[in-house]
């Protein structure tokens, strides 16, 4: 099928940033340029007044299948993804059973193919069962299709195991992704340790719990020369250490989630379980540090850590509610607020969701270069809308942004040259 996207402003980071048409043929980008001509039977999409970008890539989602299908399935999760403009997602292995072997990886890929929405690139476990003791069959996971390894949900507490995982992973050219949390320091905590946790009487997780592990991981990355990717950074300390590590040539990439640059720990007031996630929302100073990190490139990537949970699970008392919020369908307008604030240019913002994640995980995605896969997103940056969880494509509704009036909406999502979502 041939598609011509006409009259839009193309933002293809590092390549094009201006008015242009995009021609798609046989699932690939055929051409990008002004006033392109298309065959008579082509589908023409009028993108006047809209922005055309490569499809977004989310390096960090939780799709809950196999094991927790009541929260989300690969089908509903990828539907949510394309509704949010994400054409490729990397799903974390903390399913049940954990994705620490080839069969689970193949199961996930098969489900993704059947759903026919976004591309799914599984992340395999670092250790068997993510128990942090013995390495998983990383070579096999790579061959089956995993693009990175992580025990996300959990850190790898044992530094020797983490060192070996990093050394071993070099042979397969996969980044090692760590969820940086010292479980002893964070023990019992359910929100940031600070003035709000004192007022609410909730056990807190100090910022140091993250900083300590970031420091350890950077030291190990320096020792081993491995590719380290730090998931969902939330503290000023983490950003500072990553900035320093990069100047010294350590191979580290870092990720931040929209909720960590949009909200502070104040969002928990009233025991709002939709503001409960791990790592927790921190202070205004941490939010500013995340924004500074995004601006100067210390933080390479914006990812959602999309974590669906059923309503009755979130309706419990705060300490009992599970951690996490959904994020695929709100990430783009929230990222655009950074453009509005002047933290990022539009091109830089798009890069955080396309070229940078592709580079971090070695994916051949995130670009509109001729010959690339035709994963394209068309958005109306001026359209204002209200976040209504009842309209989410995800099975779950757990978001702190319900009722927010936001600007910037995905109007069309194309994966492999097929329109998979239209607003």
């Amino acid at each position: 099928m041939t598609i011509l996207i006409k009259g839009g402003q193309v933002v293809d980071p590092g390549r094009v940033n201006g008015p242009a048409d995009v021609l798609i043929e046989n699932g690939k980008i055929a051409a990008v340029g002004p006033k392109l001509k298309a065959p008579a039977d082509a589908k023409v999409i009028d993108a006047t007044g809209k922005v055309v970008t490569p499809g977004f890539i989310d390096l960090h989602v939780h799709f809950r299948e196999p094991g927790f299908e009541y929260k989300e399935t690969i089908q509903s999760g990828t539907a949510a993804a394309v509704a949010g403009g994400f054409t490729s997602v990397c799903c974390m292995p903390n399913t049940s059973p954990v994705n620490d072997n080839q069969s689970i990886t193949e199961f996930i890929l098969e489900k993704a193919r059947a759903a026919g929405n976004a591309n799914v690139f599984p992340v395999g476990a670092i250790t068997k069962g993510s128990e942090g003791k013995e390495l998983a069959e990383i070579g096999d996971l790579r061959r089956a299709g995993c693009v990175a390894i992580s025990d996300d949900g959990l850190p790898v507490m044992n530094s020797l195991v983490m060192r070996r995982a990093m050394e071993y992973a070099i042979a397969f050219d996969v980044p090692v992704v760590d969820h940086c949390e010292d479980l002893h320091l964070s023990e019992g905590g359910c929100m940031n340790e600070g003035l709000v946790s004192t007022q609410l009487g909730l056990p807190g997780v100090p910022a140091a719990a993250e900083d300590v592990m970031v420091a350890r991981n950077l030291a190990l990355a320096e020792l081993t020369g491995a590719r380290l990717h730090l998931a969902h950074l939330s503290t000023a300390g983490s950003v500072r250490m990553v900035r320093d590590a990069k100047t010294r040539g350590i191979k580290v990439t870092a990720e931040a989630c929209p909720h960590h640059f949009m909200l502070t720990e104040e969002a928990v007031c009233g025991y709002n379980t939709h503001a409960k996630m791990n790592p927790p929302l921190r202070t205004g100073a941490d939010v500013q540090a995340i924004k500074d990190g995004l601006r100067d490139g210390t933080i390479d990537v914006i990812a959602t850590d999309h974590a669906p949970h059923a309503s009755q699970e979130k309706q419990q008392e705060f300490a009992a509610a599970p951690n996490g919020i959904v994020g695929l369908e709100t990430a783009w307008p929230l990222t655009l607020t950074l453009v509005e604030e002047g933290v990022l240019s539009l091109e830089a913002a798009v890069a955080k969701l396309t070229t940078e994640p592709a580079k971090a995980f070695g994916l051949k995605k995130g670009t509109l270069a001729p010959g690339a896969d035709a994963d394209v997103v068309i958005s109306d940056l001026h359209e204002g809308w209200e976040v209504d969880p009842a309209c989410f494509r995800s099975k779950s509704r757990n978001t702190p942004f319900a009722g927010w009036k936001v600007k910037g909406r995905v109007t069309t999502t194309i994966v492999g040259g097929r329109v998979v979502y239209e607003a």
Partner: protein
Amino acid sequence: MSFKHKHLLGIAPLSAEEIMLILETADSFKEVSGREIKKVPALRGKTVVNLFFEPSTRTRTSFELAAKRLSADVINFSPSNSSVVKGETLLDTARNIEAMQADLIVLRHPAAGAAETLARGVKSSVINAGDGWHEHPTQALLDLYTLREKKRDFKGLRVAIVGDVAHSRVARSNILALTKVGADVRVVGPRTMMPYGIERLGVRLYDKLDEGLRGVDVIMMLRLQLERQGRALFPTIREYSRLYGLTAERLKLAEAGALVMHPGPINRGVEIAPDVADSFSSVILDQVTNGVAVRMGILYLLSGANG
């Protein structure tokens, strides 16, 4: 003025005037408790449910007595751990209770915020009888009532709260209440037991007991939860009681006639030396009587027609 709140979830939402209104209302009920017939029909036909997820004989009995003296019907619910294991959540339990047309629910629960979560999910009025480390408003109100009887004026009253402040809902509620009515509050204890930023709540922090007790009018001792010993908060009970236990000599550092209070039950020889504990046992009995009066006052003020 009138009491416009539907729930009593904590001291935090109350103004100083509302706190004084509760104390003044309790005066009338203390008088009722002094009569031959210790009953008034004010809550006749209302149903009060005590929903206690944590064991507590004293607080529960106090609420039960308060409700019965107001002629309300009382039901006691202590969900055993097994119903929680079966997957029945706090809200499920509460909705079952609401189906009994409960007018007021008194909730004690180990999770901070449980009372607020419950209040959002039911139509009844909710009284927080202790939620995790967060607040225990009726305890603070009865402490203030006792202080008012004995010390009259709150403004400038120097109060030292000693012990595990971080894990104490009684401490949090008392800090809030006392600072609202103008008292001068300090907290004393090892830094491992002080929550982050406690000074920002308007109190001074002392990690040495002798300095902390100098010149105070009131000493509120908190119970040391012995089960916490394993969590690196303090090395041994022996060291804790040597450094932070209230002895007769230390008591002399305070103002003459300083009042010693303890929410109970006392670990004799740990927080308080036995001779000191014996000498102020009368205040504890007062606190029991006052507790019923204060709780009657709160049940009364919350029992208006629910919209």
